[in-house]
C-alpha cells in the first residue's frame, strides 16, 4: 500500500460547517479508509512543525473546508502543500436543503447525516487518489 492520502479539515470552531467537516474527516481516516487515509493538525502544519510539513509535501492532500473562507485550503497551500481535491461542507448543504443544522458543539441528527454523506464522498476520492499513485 502507498502513502496515505491526507485529509485535512478546517475544524472551524465558530460554525456548524467546521464541526461537520471535522467529523467527516474522522469517519474517513478512522473508519471508512483506515490505513489508506490520514489526517493531521492544521495548526501544527501552519506553525511550521517539520514532521507535519514533510507529511504534507510527500502526500496527496484533500482539503475539507466548512465555508468559503477556505481556511484549510489556504493554510495547506501557504505551508507548501498542494491540494489534490477540495470539499466544502456548505456546497453539500446546498444539495441537501432538508438537512439544515446549526449544531456546532455536538452534532445533531442532520449534521450526522451530512457528515456521513461527506465522508462517503471523501472516501471515494481517497480511493481515486490512491489508485492514481499505484499506476
Amino acid at each position, binding site marked *: 500500500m502507498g502513502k496515505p492520502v491526507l485529509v485535512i479539515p478546517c475544524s472551524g470552531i*465558530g*460554525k*456548524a*460547517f467546521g464541526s461537520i467537516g471535522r467529523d467527516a474527516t474522522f469517519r474517513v481516516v478512522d473508519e471508512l479508509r483506515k490505513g489508506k487515509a490520514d489526517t493531521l493538525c492544521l495548526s501544527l502544519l501552519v506553525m511550521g512543525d517539520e514532521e507535519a510539513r514533510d507529511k504534507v509535501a510527500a502526500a496527496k492532500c484533500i482539503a475539507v473546508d466548512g*465555508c*468559503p473562507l477556505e481556511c484549510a485550503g489556504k493554510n495547506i497551500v501557504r505551508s507548501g502543500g498542494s491540494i489534490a481535491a477540495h470539499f466544502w461542507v*456548505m456546497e453539500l*448543504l*446546498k444539495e441537501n*436543503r432538508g438537512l*439544515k*443544522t*446549526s449544531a456546532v458543539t455536538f452534532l445533531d441528527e442532520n449534521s450526522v447525516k451530512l457528515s456521513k454523506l461527506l465522508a462517503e464522498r471523501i472516501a471515494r476520492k481517497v480511493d481515486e487518489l490512491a489508485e492514481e499513485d499505484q499506476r
Partner: protein
Amino acid sequence: MAEEYLQMTADKFIFRVKKNLLYSQDDVWVDAAGAKAKIGVTDFFQRRGGDIIFLELPREGDSLTRGSRFASFETIKVVFDVISPVSGVVTRTNAELEPNPETINADPYGKGWIAEVTITDAGELDGLLTPEAYLELMKGKVAEEMKKIKGK
C-alpha cells in the same frame, strides 16, 4: 480601502458602512444615479444572517414597492426578508448570486449587489439615510444583536 468605509467594532467584529451610498432602515443600500439605482444589503445585514445558502431574487420586470419584501435569503438557521428601499421596476438582477449566494457575504457592497432598478419616485431617495446616519442606526442594532448572541 479603509477610507471607503465608515466602520464600528463590536467584540471582534468589524461592521462597515460604505460611503457614497444611501441606506434604508432595513439595512439595504442604494447607489442611485438619476432614475437608476443599484441595490444590495449592508455588511450588518449579511453578517447578522450568517452564510447565505439559498436565496430568492426578484426577476427582470418585477415591480418593487418601497417597504415590501423583494428578495429573501436563507442561511443555515433562518430565512431573512430583504425589504425594498425604493419603488420601481427591476431591470437586472445579479446572475452571479444564484449559483454563489455566498458572494453577498464576501462582498456585500460590491460583487454582492442584488438588483438594478428604475426608480418610479425619486422623492423616495430623500427618505433614505446618509452613511453617517446609517452608522448610528447600525450601532444600536449591533448592540441589540450582541445581547442576543450567546457564545459566539
